[in-house]
């Protein structure tokens, strides 16, 4: 009995620009990684949280993001091949799916669906995810590459944010700044290039601009209808924000996105033809069944207007990150400390951020998607859900599957929970007379 909706949209001059640019930039990234691998040029394996792209790009060291690469294998329907290859080597089904996809890729000739998956020439990790460190050690043993682990002390006080006026903070800045200087030395050694502080300034300036643009992009979804889906389109913005962090092409991309979204807003064009429910996503999607997952929400005209993923995987660019170019290294240390805190303390304080987002973006409900193979991101989600319902009156749905492992996807159960959630949202709306 479902009626087919026909989208009648005005012809927009910017339509499709983001998608075209995103594809071209991602293709080019894979091409550059393949060329670097073929030329035996050292590539840095780094992560979306704490990438330190600012330093790596100063030395023109190509960056490979194994998390993004793993996600892409899932979207391409290939993740299971690599997961099983890793499990054949003895890696447990309980281990992070991203790690196992990476292990499987390395074990099967490094042929990624989008290009050649490079060998790491160095690794930049941090303690923002406990798995990063052990993952880096696998590469270290496998390829003998140098590993740099950024140790972020974390705020010892209570609350979500660093107290940046405290003596503790100043001491922490010195501690992190010293580590960044170590990374600069290592990067110089690996790349064979001298450190150019003006180039670092230029890159930091680009990150500042990207951050401003990214914040404006996110704010676009405060409009009704929301011009983009923070899950489907947001994941592309996020990917480019990471791989081109601090580069002119990254700034240009963000300008393209913003221009397209501004035009959509000006013409009242939403991500969905008929937006009925505005949602916040906490966690990630199941990328193996990405379209099915999104479809279960769109079937009810539900759009994700915001996503926690667009925050914690963005290295702080959603939080108005601003480097002081007159003291670049110290400022880099400060900003890393400040912007990493929400991720570091997420288990205990993420509900505060969710309440704020729910209000600012006027969401009808929150979808909490627990990742079975990542307890770090999944821990605390049921508690946050209950807190939001009982203290902020925002209903939440808790579902579970995985980032990349299709064995953890159960369509009937997933759909049942999602349908029931929307039915309850509908009831709420009727009862409140909206």
């Amino acid at each position, binding site marked *: *009995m*479902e*009626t087919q909706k026909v989208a009648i949209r005005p012809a927009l001059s910017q339509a499709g620009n983001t998608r075209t640019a995103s594809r071209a930039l991602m293709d080019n990234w894979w091409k550059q990684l393949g060329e670097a691998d073929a030329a035996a040029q050292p590539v840095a394996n780094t992560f979306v949280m704490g990438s330190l792209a600012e330093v790596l790009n100063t030395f023109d060291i190509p960056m490979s993001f194994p998390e993004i690469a793993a996600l892409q294998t899932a979207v391409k329907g290939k993740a299971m091949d690599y997961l099983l290859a890793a499990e054949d080597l003895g890696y447990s089904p309980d281990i992070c799916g991203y790690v196992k996809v990476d292990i499987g890729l390395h074990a099967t000739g490094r042929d990624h669906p989008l290009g050649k998956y490079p060998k790491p020439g160095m690794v930049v990790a941090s303690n923002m995810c406990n798995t990063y460190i052990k993952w880096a050690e696998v590469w270290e043993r496998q390829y003998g590459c140098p590993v740099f682990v950024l140790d972020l002390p974390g705020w010892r006080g209570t609350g979500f944010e660093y107290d940046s006026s405290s003596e503790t903070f100043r001491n922490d800045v010195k501690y992190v700044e010293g580590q960044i200087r170590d990374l600069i030395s290592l990067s110089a050694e690996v790349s064979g290039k001298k450190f150019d502080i003006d180039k670092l300034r230029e890159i930091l300036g680009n990150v500042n601009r990207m951050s401003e643009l990214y914040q404006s992009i996110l704010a676009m979804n405060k409009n009704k209808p929301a011009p983009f889906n923070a899950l489907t389109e947001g994941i592309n913005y996020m990917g480019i924000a990471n791989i081109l962090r601090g580069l002119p092409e990254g700034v240009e991309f963000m300008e393209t996105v913003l221009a397209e979204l501004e035009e959509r807003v000006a013409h009242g064009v939403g991500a969905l033809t008929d937006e009925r429910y505005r949602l916040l996503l906490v966690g990630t999607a199941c990328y193996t069944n990405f379209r099915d997952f999104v479809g279960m929400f769109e*079937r*009810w005209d539900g759009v994700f207007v915001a996503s926690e993923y667009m925050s914690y995987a963005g290295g702080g660019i959603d939080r108005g990150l601003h480097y002081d170019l007159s003291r670049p290294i110290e400022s880099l240390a400060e900003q890393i400390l400040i912007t990493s805190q929400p991720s570091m303390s997420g288990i205990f304080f993420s509900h505060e951020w969710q309440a704020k987002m729910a209000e600012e973006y006027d969401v009808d409900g929150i979808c909490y998607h627990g990742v079975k193979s990542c307890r770090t991101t999944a821990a605390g989600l*049921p508690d946050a859900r*209950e807190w939001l*319902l009982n203290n902020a009156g925002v*209903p939440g749905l*808790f579902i*579970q599957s995985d980032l990349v492992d299709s064995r*953890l996807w*159960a369509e*009937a*159960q997933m759909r*049942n*929970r999602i*349908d*029931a959630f*929307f*039915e*309850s949202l*509908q*009831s*709420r709306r*009727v*009862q409140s007379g909206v």
Partner: protein
Amino acid sequence: MLVAGVDVGSTQTKAVIITGEHEILGRGLCSTGAKLADAGETAFNLALEQTEFAEPDVAFVVGTGYGRFNIDFGDAQVTEISCHARGAVHLFPGTRSVLDIGGQDTKAIKVTADGQVVDFNMNDKCAAGTGRFLGAASDALEIPLGELGPLALAAKNPVKMTTTCTVFAESEILGWMAKGRRIEDVVMGVHNSIASRSVSLLRRVGIEPEITFTGGVTRNTAMVELISELVGSRVNTNEESHYCGAIGAALYALDQVLTGAGTERGLPT
């Protein structure tokens, strides 16, 4: 004017035919099996046979349960979460919390006075703490499901089941028997395991009296006792509790006919 609710569950399919005055004229029950559409039709026809009416007299059919989209004669679909909530408040108007132990999943639902869902919580994707756990005990001990409850109530020193996996439960049950434990103590151990997991789900949505227990497991007397003991008050059940999901579906069907409420997707409005 008649309407129907058909609940195609993972284990059993239930159907009811009700009048505009909420009187239940017919009930149908059959095993679901592999052919979901056939099961829905069989249960519906069984319910219809108990009435003096024919299929064209049924103005609207709402399907619920995992097989709700397979009911090709259904007019709309609503999830069993909403249907159990609605059905429970209809059967026991003071209901504010609902516990449904189904064949493959268990639902804890907080409801409003008019049967709308405020919040719900379900078991994880595995069948631990569901009716299937009892099925495993029935298979392992070769005791009919209907006899498990009375047998459990005779327990003196129940065993403590440690596994939460329904598949592994069979081997643990046999292990206890091999150790010489009395069968009623083993069966009660199984009941305790399900009851504690189910009530834990209920606690997560917040236990608010009255509590209504729904689904096929309500026919198990030991489980009703245990759940009541764990929540600290007598849970509501009656002979209609088994059909609660189908009753809720029928009430949504009635809404559609009387008010034209809802959308093309059969939303409970």
